[in-house]
């Protein structure tokens, strides 16, 4: 076992600072949770407190139910006061992310199957073009895509957010490479038995590529949940905004006084929770997925 020759001093000498460093990584998160529950006076205290003396939920909503102009602009009040509040943005993000993930992986895996296992004329060229397109940064694409969406009248719509995100070249590339290793004999046997390609794909291939699919699912969910620039361009109203967009608007409108920091912290907290929970629940798949794409990429 590597490192077994190291003296115990060296082993623990390294571990303790690393462990402390890991705790410092947590510090910003702790700060975020702390700030979410502090009252305005406590937020401006100098030096700031590391333990809450006077916890409050005011950053989330005002329990006294005051009406403007006396009310505290907690986060969920932006649900009741304004027609579209934080919950709307959260649900929008959820809807958009899930739809994009499911649909894009569906079309990517069926395209990958064709490119990997079916003798379609022109499949070599198609694959080369797909791989080449991965080299092009999204900044080259997003101006024409914005113009296309505008001409289609899809600004400020869900389809404007979802449909341009559906063709995922990397997913096709990755899944095709993975499918290449599936045994042809099995597919041939199914064909001889009279199964249609659709059936072969759905009942044989899909179950076999589950590891690759879960890796792609994780990446797509993370990428789409946190996607900022495309919603920034496509959505100008409040009805269709996604979470990063909401957070950004909140940040630019109320990052003025000290009291508002509590609301910002509360918003960041809520925005972070879903992906953190997803990570903690699927840690193993996360790590395996990253390792898998690192090998094939």
């Amino acid at each position, binding site marked *: 076992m590597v490192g077994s020759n190291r003296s115990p001093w060296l082993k623990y000498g390294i571990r303790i600072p690393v462990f402390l460093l890991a705790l410092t990584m947590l510090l910003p998160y702790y700060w975020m949770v702390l700030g979410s529950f502090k009252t305005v006076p406590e937020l401006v205290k*100098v030096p700031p407190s590391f333990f809450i003396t006077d916890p409050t939920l005011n950053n989330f909503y005002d329990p006294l139910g005051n009406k403007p102009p006396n009310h505290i602009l907690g986060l969920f009040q932006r649900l009741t006061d304004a027609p579209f509040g934080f919950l709307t943005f959260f649900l929008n993000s959820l809807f958009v992310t899930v739809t994009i993930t499911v649909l894009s992986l569906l079309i990517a895996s069926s395209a990958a199957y064709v490119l990997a296992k079916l003798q379609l004329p022109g499949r070599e060229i198609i694959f080369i073009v797909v791989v080449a397109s991965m080299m092009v940064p999204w900044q080259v694409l997003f101006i024409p895509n914005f113009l296309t969406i505008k001409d289609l009248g899809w600004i400020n719509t869900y389809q404007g957010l979802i449909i341009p995100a559906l063709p995922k070249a990397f997913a096709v590339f990755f899944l095709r490479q993975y499918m290449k290793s599936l045994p042809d004999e099995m597919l041939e046997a199914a064909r001889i038995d009279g199964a249609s390609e659709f059936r072969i794909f759905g009942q044989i291939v899909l179950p076999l590529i589950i590891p690759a699919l879960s890796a792609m699912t994780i990446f797509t969910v993370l990428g789409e949940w946190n996607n900022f620039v495309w919603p920034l361009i496509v959505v100008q109203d409040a009805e269709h905004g996604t979470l990063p967009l909401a957070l950004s608007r909140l940040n630019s409108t109320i990052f003025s006084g000290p009291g508002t920091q509590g609301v910002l912290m509360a918003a960041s907290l809520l925005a972070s929770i879903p992906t953190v929970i997803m990570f903690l629940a699927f840690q193993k798949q996360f790590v395996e997925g990253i390792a898998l794409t690192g090998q094939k990429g």
Partner: protein
Amino acid sequence: MAISESNVRPDFTKRTLNARVALFRRMGAGYIMIAPFLILFLVFAVWPIINSLYLSFTDFNGVKAGEFIGTKNYERMWGDERFIKALTNTASYVVLIVSLNTVCGLALAMALRAPSLLNQICRALFFLPAVTSTIAVTVLWRTIFTSADYGLANTILHFFGLKTIVFFSSPEWSIPILVIISLWGGMGGTMIIFLAGLQSISSDMTEAAAIDGATSVQRFWYIILPLLKPTTIYIVITGLIGAFQVFDMVYLIYSTVGNIGGPLDSALTIVPYLYDRGFTRFQLGYASSIAWVLFGIIFIMTMINLRLGRDNK
């Protein structure tokens, strides 16, 4: 049954016909299966490349159709002070973040590679920021670096007897702030990839070296590091590509400060400048040419890295 021409031939033709029909059916299914992706891919990935290239040679401003102006956009770039500033800022940022991220990721992976529970917890802790939304991370760090006395960063500075620093108004702090935030968020991901690379190194070689008397440092430098080269190249390349495209952080912190540039344009990087030109001033032709220059830079960097990786045998 006697096998004669008339017996065999109809059978054979029928079988070939069936086979041909089945083949067409399969090809038909194939086309149907690849069609959704292909159509969307052509519309939203292929066509834009061509369109964007064309736009970069026009003066399109979003209202009237652009007129072809040849390479004027590209010529304009080299005289554009803001663009040059964006280039130099991006270069500093990229160099800093890629080198620090790679080194830190490797150090973490080396330190935490033993399969113990403590290591598992530490690894998860380091990776946690990577799954948090960049926007949430940036908003959080914005409050940490705030110049008011209750900001966390300044509190720590005061604790060590140092004076308050007004981070966001100091030009010399712009790039370092971006690097810090990005490092906090990215170290964990790099660590995971290095860990995967380390696991694929068999311990035979290192054990043999240990038996021969090599110290851990020697083992690391002469055995582990060279074997990690493919992983390192992958990390550097993807790191470069990602770092050149930095946008979210800069926009969130500096969009209202100096036209997305920060104090004295010290935080201006390429993509925010592209956004400013394209979506704030609607100079879409010029913005397209900036996008293509960015593409060119990334492409050249990637090629250089691949070549360097191949030569050093």
